[in-house]
């Protein structure tokens, strides 16, 4: 129900619309819920609406965190997740 997926913006259209691409599948979505969407960015789409963006650097860091696990055994891990509290 909360199905949402990261997709790449390939065209920004008037009326807060954009065309996104996922592995060759293209679809028009609404960008009314996010600010300043540009071509090349990844947005997370839910029921036809972009509800947020993907931060590529943070994504990279998360992937690195998964892998750095191997080396670093101690906690806190080297690339610690963002601490919010």
């Amino acid at each position, binding site marked *: *129900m*909360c*199905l*949402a*997926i*990261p997709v*790449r913006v390939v065209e920004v259209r008037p009326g807060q619309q954009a065309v996104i691409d*996922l*592995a060759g599948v293209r679809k028009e979505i*609404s960008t*009314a*819920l*996010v*600010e300043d969407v540009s071509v090349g960015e*990844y947005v*997370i789409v*839910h*029921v*036809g*609406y972009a*509800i*947020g*963006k*993907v*931060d*590529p650097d*943070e*994504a990279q*860091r*998360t*992937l690195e*965190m*998964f*892998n750095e*696990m*191997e080396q670093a*055994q101690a*906690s806190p891990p080297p690339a610690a*997740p*963002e*601490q*919010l*509290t």
Partner: protein
Amino acid sequence: MKYIDEFRDGEVAQKIAARIHAEVQPGRRYSFMEFCGGHTHAISRYGVSELLPESVRMIHGPGCPVCVLPIGRIDHAIKAALEHNAIVCTYGDTMRVPASDGLSLIKAKARGGDIRMVYSAADALRIALENPLREVVFFAIGFETTTPPTALVLREAAARKIDNFSVLCCHVLTPSAITHILESPEVRDYGTVPIDGFIGPAHVSIVIGSGPYEHFAEEYRKPVVVAGFEPLDVIQAILMLVRQVNEGRSEVENEFVRAVTTEGNLVAQTLVSDVFELRTTFEWRGLGEVPYSALRIRSAFASYDAEKKFGLAYKPVADNKACECGAILRGVKRPTDCKLFGTVCTPENPMGSCMVSSEGACAAHYSYGRFKDIPVVTA
């Protein structure tokens, strides 16, 4: 698929799993609730639990908007279709949820109700424009992820005076449900549901941010890790929870940092509070009446409120007695504890809502995990 495939890598999963196995403390049990059905679904579909040590137990939470929809609300939608002859537009997931009188939306459709599955709230508004002589009701369900699109179409309907359109608002709120579980006697007093931490919602948190969970970490001393819906996100979150438990911490950590910020999507939040306001109470299936746990349409948009337009007064309806959905949604029982599971209750003939949505605990176990209940001999 970028940002998807990398987060489903089985080899990386093995490494993280090895870490969990190494770090769990002998003799200690770890019980974590994944609040969201999205996590429940990922755990079952990818077989995440098989990678976990015996001592780590995942408890399915109530975070499936279809599962928590009480019968009385489905009855409203059916009434709009069958009695008020409205076109009722709905997200496909709700079609099979059991309602009163042996009905469901799909059965009401077969009985002549004009009920249409839509992919997006905007489709419902389009249908209203295309059928100016018919009333069109959008049956709006969902957590904070799904609420902003509903707010957008309500605002647009009002701006364009599309007066044959209305919304049957059943949007519910995540934090109130978590509070409710933490306040429940099973968790608080008896300890029948030993929750050592939460995996926090992925897409809900994109909208509301991770901020709202800090209260739980502080007040109830429960670790929370906000995590994405991909299997690596889940297993990583479990590792992070194990570590918090081991270290005696109870913090809000954000594994889904690539999409979730502390404050969330402010555009969406503002829009939602422009259009909706808190209900003082709302019935959830399984949880009963939960105070301040849902939204209703503000009076400025009253003429687009299907409850008002069709005079739909809420009447609670008891669930099937044998159905354990309630206990399952509270984390007290598992699907296989239900006598109906897999015999009387199957996805074709669901007796409870948990057997309907693929995010429901019963459906997920039935569709993906059932083999574990029986010994399998491979040739």
